């Protein structure tokens, strides 16, 4: 028997009021793969991430993480089971320093939880991991600055840093490179490629260069339905995908 997929969505539906947004998504993400989700604006990509990460429950259907049913669980439970996500709209702790932003995400995973017995700035393991993440996202020099005053690109980098700092093995990134310059995007892609070794990555991305460069498999979400899941080459060649989505960009 093959190991259970990292993520398994079965017939997931989501409606906001009477409006169906996710209309029956069934998807397996294999452990260790880099999986891209693409689709036009408003297709429901972020909504799908919100369901998987516990921001809100699906109207119908089940979500499994590494074999365990996590449907409707709160975000912190899902995070503790090893899933971490980033946000399309930067979602950081603006008044805390950059260093502290990353550290917040390290604490639970190193089992310090709600501890009242540790001095947080004397924890070697916390400090080490925080410094390492800061170096990875190129923010070591800015670590004592309040996160709220970072530039947009720096905040996007921090967003990724917070997401990966907890050491989760399933990582969802929602448009991590949106708004970045060309060189910043290149750096971010290398960072993502580097950190995803041994981890499962699901990434929503509009930049097709990034998608075809990074992804092992691609799912195409259109109007709340996945119309195709396949390797990059075959997605490029897929008629339905071309018609529905890639049409304008195809060459």
């Amino acid at each position, binding site marked *: 028997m093959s190991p259970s997929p990292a993520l398994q969505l079965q017939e997931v539906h989501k409606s906001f009021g009477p409006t169906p947004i996710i209309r029956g998504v069934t998807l397996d993400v294999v452990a260790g793969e880099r999986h891209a989700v693409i689709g036009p604006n408003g297709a429901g990509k972020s909504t799908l991430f919100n369901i998987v990460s516990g921001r809100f429950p699906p109207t119908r259907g089940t979500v499994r993480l590494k074999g365990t049913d996590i449907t409707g669980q709160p975000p912190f439970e899902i995070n503790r089971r090893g899933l971490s*996500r980033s946000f399309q709209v930067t979602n950081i702790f603006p008044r805390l320093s950059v260093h502290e932003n990353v550290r917040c995400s390290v604490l639970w995973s190193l089992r310090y939880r709600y501890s009242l017995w540790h001095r947080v700035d004397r924890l070697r393991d916390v400090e080490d991991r925080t410094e390492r993440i800061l170096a990875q996202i190129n923010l070591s020099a800015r670590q*004592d600055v309040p996160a709220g005053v970072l530039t947009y690109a720096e905040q996007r980098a921090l967003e990724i840093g*917070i997401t990966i700092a907890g050491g989760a093995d399933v990582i969802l990134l929602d448009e991590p490179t949106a708004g970045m310059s060309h060189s910043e995007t290149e750096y971010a892609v290398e960072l993502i490629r580097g950190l995803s070794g041994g981890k499962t990555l699901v990434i929503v991305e509009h930049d097709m260069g990034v998608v075809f460069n990074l992804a092992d498999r691609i799912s195409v979400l259109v109007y709340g339905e996945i119309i195709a899941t396949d390797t990059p080459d075959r997605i490029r060649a897929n008629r339905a995908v071309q018609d529905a989505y890639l049409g304008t960009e195809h060459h």
Partner: protein
Amino acid sequence: MMDGRPSAAVSVPLAGVAARRGRRAWPWLLAAAGLCVLPLVPGLDSNFVRSLVSQMGIAAVFALSFNMLLGQTGLLSFGHAVYFGLGGYVAIHGMRLINAGLPIPIPLVPLFGAAGGLFFGVLIGSVTTKRAGTVFAMITLGLGELVVAASLMLTRFFGGEEGITANRTRAPHLFGLTFASQLEVYYLIAFWAFLSVALMSAFTRTPLGRMCNAVRDNPERAEFVGYNPQRVRLLAFAVSAMFAGVAGGLHAVNYEIVAAEALGAARSGAVLLMAFVGGIGSFFGPILGAMVITWLQVSLSDYTTAWQLYFGILFIIIVLFAPGGLAWLIALHLPLARARMLHTVLPGYLAALAPALVMVLGGSLLLEINYRLATKPELGTRMSLFWVAMDVSRPWPWIAGLAMLAGGFYAFRRSWALVAAGWHAASERMREDGAP
């Protein structure tokens, strides 16, 4: 551990750690030494000063516990005196048990307060901390009223209007301490206040303490890094209530009585005032606020019955013009002090101070006249204010008050230019000095 040669890549982040740690022991040692010798210093060795500083210590613990919620966790409580009062009641009942023969020395009574505060903090907090923001504030307001109402009904525990009394001298005497003198009580309060402040300061550097800030800033994101914001809030609430209970326990030892006012809305309002006046953005701000407000409470209430009115005005002025409180004002001047440039801004301040005093004098003259006429009409129109006898049926006192208020305000506004000029000069000089 390290093999001799730290590379630049290692030493740079470590330097950052050192900067972030940057906490020294000497201010604490200095404070401890100061508390020890203060009541013995000639001139300050009166029971009045000892009692005043004791009250300041109690207020400081209470205000810091309040700011653990507001400043650190982002929870505005309108009913924080509930935990002060309930802690105080548990402590006073503990003292009664001691009076009846329970073999516990008086210095441990604040622990009763801590236990009481913690117990009710967990009990009530498990309801209130389900939500943050406005809903939380509203619930604390309602619960505050509820507890006050309950205290008037459950007279066996709360003692009704008169409250519950106990005797701190009828207890096992540890090291010969009888607590019959204000000096011994002072040392008891100073010890517990110092310990509480140190523990609350340590709390800010624990994983839980840091996550309180994270939940204050962005509870949603905290959920996605593994933390349950409701749990963080509840724990902060419980710890905060525990320290409020310690303050209540000290209050019980100090006064040997706890009555319904200990948990009432006025005290909840006062602690909010202390925190804001001192500054909710810094750890030590509320201590400053507690000291200033306690001092004003004690001294103003000797001179005027309208002191709460002045507190209201002070509160509005602080919130409008110095939202960071006294701590912020001090922090503003620290760079100047370090650069030895305070003298550049001082003339402006002095120029502003004189008209400000005239303005305040005029304003309070008008206030006092009105207050006296409204609250004690039977005493007639002759009165003595600011050591001057006057008859307010004549126009002159009113004209004098108005003239001082308006003239003072006018001159005060004009003096701002001088203050601004002083600051301008100082920052110019600092920029020049700072340039390489």
